[in-house]
């Protein structure tokens, strides 16, 4: 654990279990992420990386254990000697601190670029239209999409859509940003544009970032911790310079050489 004693971790998993039918994806997972950490999750597909992000976004329900955000219970709490589910209203308050960018962008096709970005700030944070637009324009500038402001999202290329999706997530001022294979659906030549935007965010903000990616070079640049997953367990954990150059585990070595040769 990289968090100093007394610090409340941004994210904490305690004995988290997730099953899909008979398939146990996470089997009592424990780990925590300190405030401002940049953590990359690597590992073969089906090892549970994406499930972790989806649990953190409440897109999946866990089958056991506890998830805490800034020490606040997110899924269940101990009440009257019993574990009870957190009511949706309180869960929403915690979820407000978490944002996510998806592999498939998931922009709203019935809205323009600008409308996509101001929708949640206006209707969740209660910002005025004027304030929301001002912030959106700032973010569009940051991701290099200013001139596409009034375009339909369906008129944009994949890379452009993903940059808008990043702006949309940032417009909610998340403390934690989840990046789920955000370049996997993109053509190789536009991957660099999207990574550049993310590099920028990593450099200029203190947002806690949790990323699942196959871009090892990028993971190396932006993250300060890498977790290697296999069969729903963390089998190795190290700073990127260590894990990428000299992994301790044979399984990690195999995985890395397979990814690099791809």
């Amino acid at each position, binding site marked *: 654990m990289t968090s100093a004693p007394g610090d409340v971790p941004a994210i904490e998993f305690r004995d988290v279990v997730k099953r899909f039918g008979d398939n146990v994806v996470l089997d009592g997972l424990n780990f925590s992420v300190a405030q401002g950490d940049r953590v990359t999750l690597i590992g073969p597909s089906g090892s549970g990386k994406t499930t972790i992000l989806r649990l953190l*976004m*409440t897109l999946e329900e866990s089958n056991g254990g506890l998830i805490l955000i800034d020490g606040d219970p997110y899924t269940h709490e101990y009440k009257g000697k019993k574990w009870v589910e957190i009511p949706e209203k309180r869960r929403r308050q915690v*979820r*407000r601190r978490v944002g996510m960018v998806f592999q498939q962008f998931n922009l709203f096709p019935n809205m323009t670029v600008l409308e996509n970005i101001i*929708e949640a700030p206006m*209707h*969740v944070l209660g910002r005025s239209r004027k304030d929301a637009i001002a912030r959106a324009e700032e973010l569009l500038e940051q991701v290099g999409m200013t001139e596409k402001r009034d375009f339909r999202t369906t008129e944009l290329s994949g890379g452009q859509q993903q940059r808008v999706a990043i702006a949309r997530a940032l417009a909610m001022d998340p403390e934690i940003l989840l990046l789920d294979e955000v370049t996997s659906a993109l053509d190789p030549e536009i991957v660099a544009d999207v990574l550049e935007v993310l590099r920028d965010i990593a450099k200029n903000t203190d947002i806690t970032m949790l990323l699942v990616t196959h871009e090892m070079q990028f993971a190396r640049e932006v993250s300060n911790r890498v977790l290697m997953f296999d069969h729903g367990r963390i089998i190795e954990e190290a700073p990127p310079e260590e894990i990428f150059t000299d992994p301790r585990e044979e399984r990690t070595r195999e995985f890395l050489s397979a990814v690099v040769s791809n």
Partner: protein
Amino acid sequence: MSDIWDWDRAWEVLPDLLEGLKITVFATVVGMVIASILGLVFALVLRKHVPVLTKLLKFVVDFVRMTPLLVQLVFVYLLSPPEIPALAIGCVVLGIHYATYMSEVYRAGIDAVPPGQWEAATALNLPKSRTWRAVILPQAIRNTLPGLGNYAISMFKETPFLFAISVVEMFSAAQRFGANTFSYIEPITMVGVLFLLVSYPTSLLVRRMEIRLA
């Protein structure tokens, strides 16, 4: 030819039929407005699993679908107080009848919205009601437009049933003319032609919409 078909008679009946066509189109438009709104309400309630209401509605929807429109029209007409105009009863019954089918179109339209849209809405912490209004329904309704068009054509073609509750739409007008002149061929043929003249271009429009939305 001239024994069974008389052009003069065909032209003579035309004004009556056009009057009837107005009623036919009116009933279709009002019926479809009711069906579109009620169909959406049905779809949402059936989806929501509201304890008693959903079960009840499921029964009503099945019941309406499994019984003939003609029977429903006459049944409601007989039960209604005489002050209510037959045309109003006709529109409402047509609307409810087709709402049970439109609810299926809405259901399919809602299911066709990719799960990623729900997930993005959750990730942005949008409230459920806002997610429906701003994200899901605009996309779902777009998906339902061709279905809505097709049912509008079906409903249009079923308006002659209104004859049974004494609404003077196009078919009744033709019947009346036939009863007075003892010649049915011309009015009924003209009715068919007029139906075709409205239905066919509408169906082309719906097909174009389907292609554009695909």
